């Protein structure tokens, strides 16, 4: 009996010391693990000792994900990349003390499906924060990807909210855009160099005219709004299954309708130019030879009357169409032309 008690006390002491050691050991272990890689890859063992077992004085930010190509998870990869950015920033920019307070880890479904079962998880990716005081059975704090998104800044904010450790997110610069632009510029310059004997097209006013007009049509049809707000291309009515290209409110627009509007503006402008060209042609017939080269319309040799009438019809029809599109959005607008 006495020996039993002694043994028991001894065991207890050993356990205590082991446990005492474990905390320091655990932290040291984690620091070692994260010295080479900025995140810890968990298997069942590490998971149990490092995350779920007390005592802990550090926070674990763990992402549950499924990265193997067998599992169909298209957003796991981008989420993982963003998570890596935060973890790397933490590793390189946070202070020594902060790095001992927060660790980043990952559980891949392929490595440790048991952990998924243990946590009762069916979906991925999920980001959990296991606070230092969190018991073994408690539910950890989850980050809401739906609302906050999963980009690195949002994750950083989540970490700061939960642990008071502010990670300065440093995104490795994305070289794609500059490279693409540089390539494009190089291509352009190369083409210019190749064609250096005939740089006439730079002085071609028609080309410049088309470029400027294209810019105005793009912006006037609200493409900038599309770019910023990202509306759907078109909407299908859930009841009638009828697709609608034009949204019925002035505050919103669909991509389809902006294309329609841009096209209408362009057609009206073309109609107007046709009308003017008709007059120009009739006025400058004596300068026909010179005019013929400049003017692509006169090459078609359309009779000026027809051209003028066609232009006029173009203006009238398309402007009234534009007005009716506008009326369908701006309820109660009283004026229309040709058709309602």
């Amino acid at each position, binding site marked *: 009996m006495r020996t039993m008690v002694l043994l028991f006390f001894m065991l207890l002491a050993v356990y205590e010391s082991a446990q005492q050691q474990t905390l320091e050991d655990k932290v040291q272990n984690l620091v070692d693990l994260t010295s080479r890689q900025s995140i810890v890859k968990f298997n069942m063992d590490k998971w149990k000792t490092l995350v779920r077992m007390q005592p802990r004085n550090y926070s674990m930010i763990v992402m549950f994900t499924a990265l193997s190509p067998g599992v169909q998870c298209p957003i796991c990869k981008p989420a993982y990349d963003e998570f890596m950015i935060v973890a790397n920033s933490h590793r390189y920019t946070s202070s020594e003390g902060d790095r001992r307070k927060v660790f980043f880890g990952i559980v891949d479904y392929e490595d440790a499906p048991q952990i998924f079962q243990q946590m009762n998880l069916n979906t991925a990716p999920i980001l959990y924060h296991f606070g230092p005081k969190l018991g073994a059975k408690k539910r950890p704090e989850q980050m*809401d990807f*739906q*609302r906050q998104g999963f980009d690195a800044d949002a994750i950083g*904010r989540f970490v*700061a*909210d939960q642990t008071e450790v502010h990670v300065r997110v440093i995104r490795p610069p994305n070289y794609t855009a500059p490279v693409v632009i540089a390539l494009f510029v190089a291509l352009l310059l190369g083409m210019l160099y190749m064609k250096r004997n005939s740089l006439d097209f730079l002085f071609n*006013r*028609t080309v*410049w*005219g088309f470029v*400027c*007009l294209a*810019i*105005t*049509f793009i*912006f*006037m*049809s*609200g493409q*900038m*709004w599309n770019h*910023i*707000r990202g509306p759907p291309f078109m909407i299908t009515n859930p009841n009638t299954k009828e697709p609608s290209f034009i949204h019925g409110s*002035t*505050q*919103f*627009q669909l991509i389809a*309708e*902006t294309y329609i*509007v841009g096209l209408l*503006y*362009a057609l*009206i*402008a073309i109609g*107007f130019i046709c*009308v*003017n060209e008709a*007059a120009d*042609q*009739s*006025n400058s*017939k*004596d300068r*026909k*030879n010179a005019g013929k080269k400049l003017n692509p319309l006169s090459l078609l*040799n359309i*009779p*000026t*009357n*027809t051209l*003028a*009438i066609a232009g*006029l019809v173009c203006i009238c029809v398309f*402007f009234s169409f*534009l007005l009716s599109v*506008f009326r369908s*959005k*701006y309820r109660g607008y009283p*004026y229309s*032309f040709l058709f309602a």
Partner: protein
Amino acid sequence: MTSTTAARTASSRVGATTLLTIVVLALAWFVGFASRLFAIVRFESIIHEFDPWFNYRATHHMVQHGFYKFLNWFDERAWYPLGRIVGGTVYPGLMVTSGLIHWILDSLNFHVHIREVCVFLAPTFSGLTAIATYLLTKELWSPGAGLFAACFIAISPGYTSRSVAGSYDNEGIAIFALQFTYYLWVKSLKTGSIMWASLCALSYFYMVSAWGGYVFIINLIPLHALALIIMGRYSSRLFVSYTSFYCLATILSMQVPFVGFQPVRTSEHMPAFGVFGLLQIVALMHYARNRITRQQFMTLFVGGLTILGALSVVVYFALVWGGYVAPFSGRFYSLWDTGYAKIHIPIIASVSEHQPTTWVSFFFDLHITAAVFPVGLWYCIKKVNDERVFIILYAVSAVYFAGVMVRLMLTLTPAVCVLAGIGFSYTFEKYLKDEETKERSSSQSGTTKDEKLYDKAAKNVKSRNANDGDESGVSSNVRTIISIILVIFLLMFVVHATYVTSNAYSHPSVVLQSSTNNGDRIIMDDFREAYHWLRENTADDARVMSWWDYGYQIAGMANRTTLVDNNTWNNSHIALVGKAMSSNESAAYEIMTELDVDYILVIFGGVIGYSGDDINKFLWMVRIAQGEHPKDIREENYFTSTGEYSTGAGASETMLNCLMYKMSYYRFGETRVGYNQAGGFDRTRGYVIGKKDITLEYIEEAYTTENWLVRIYKRKKLPNRPTVKSEEATIPIKGKKATQGKNKKGVIRPAPTASKA
């Protein structure tokens, strides 16, 4: 003898043209003025909206106390307890202009109140804008096009939106200054005279003193100069006009206190300086080219340019890095990187006029001119010359900016009017000309054509058959039809502009208007009712807390001290008010005590269905508060469990207990709209509110206007003992409570009430 008659007819024709021009411009002025008076005819002569109230208050102050007192004015009634230096933080051009007009009228013994001057300033300046546009277009194209452009700008809704009577804002006079500066710039470029360039700089000075949009000018003119250099259109005229303009303009613009040293210290102004330097180099090279050999010239050109370019870039970045030159400001970035503002500066993103522009507002503001202005642009490019490069650059850059921000539609409108004027006048010039002079030339051309195109006889015959009635291409019938239809389009524009001005842009927003079922107009004057109540019933130094939108109006109409206002210069102060609004009552009470708040004012539209109320703006308050106090305010706490923003049945606990909710819906549950509707039906949101039995503990209702639009609450003074429920306060209370062991917190019992047994 014949020569004198010819001269006389010529001079009489000139006289007739001048008379016609003057008459047209005068009519444009009159029409522009008249069409902006809808608001006054319907309501009364009052100042509109928010910012104009501040401008009016500042003008009033200036007229009362003099210009120099105004420049040194420290306004202790705004941004309590910080105050605001007004003289150094406003563009004084507007106030000085109306003060000057007031002074002139006064000295002519024609006494009007300064308010009338302020109300009618913008419509008056719309006429001047029309004239400036005429002058600009005349320089760019022809006097005819100028008249078209003047008429367009006089009524164009894009410009009317900012210049109706009562809309006493910087933009009203700034567009005139903008157009006039452009006219003088084009003029000085054309003549190459220092006089015009100096006048241009003076006009630019006026623009700088009037509106922050002057940055657009100081970037557009250098861009024009740069484009001209690149196109090989450098001339000594450009050199003279640009250098004299730049030097004078920079010095003059630094005289405005608010601008100060910005022209030499911020990145927005650096391109102008860079072009100034470049122009010197180009001028030097033009000078050197004739004096040295080609070999030397190439060495000088390539070597010098590379070194200077690299050096200037290095120096620029060194200056930015060293803090001598400020980098580009956030507002500027948000124009290029369209996602910037949303992430970094919520206060900019929250303003509705900083949103991107839908195509509907383009069409709404420009109508037919939007469709025709590309035509004018096309012909300007086709027949390009030095000054037309300017309008091309102006149009293309302005259309980009207008796409990014709704309010910059204002800078696009003049360009559109000029180019649409050019487009229309180009067509009408062709289609309304006398037939006789052309018939002669066309018959000549017909014969020459016959001689030349002998091998295309068949086609020629056909075309001659087609033009049988009229040899000059387009037959006279077609001409007439086209002219008439184009005039119909112009009429439609006039009708549209009047409709838009009357229906969309003539609401003072201080007075609301709605109509009953049988078409009667109801005017709801709740705002002025509330402000008048504040003015009459509160202490002179009472502090009123409200969201910043109403700061200027409270200061202007109620003459009470406000905490935050529309001059959003201090984000953390605004965030504090936002935090007070979105905290629970106890926490809000702490903040309000710290800020010495006496009254709280909320706008509530649930009774009449007014959608611009504080509940709809509330999310922005939460966001801005969260930006500064992420510990205490969390946006997600204000959403329903499904992640929606709602004050109805599913609203979250935080939402139902926040100060804004309580103040908006206090006793609202007792109201009933119809027989069969439940009490507390919010007409703006369209549902019954989530919590009806709201009790207030630390504040009490002081006043609610007729239609419940404005609700004013009074912060209760501290009772005999503080009763802040510390466990409810989300602000951590400093200092440890000594509650352990025997030192239990002493509790003062309420004084025993004497009761007769």
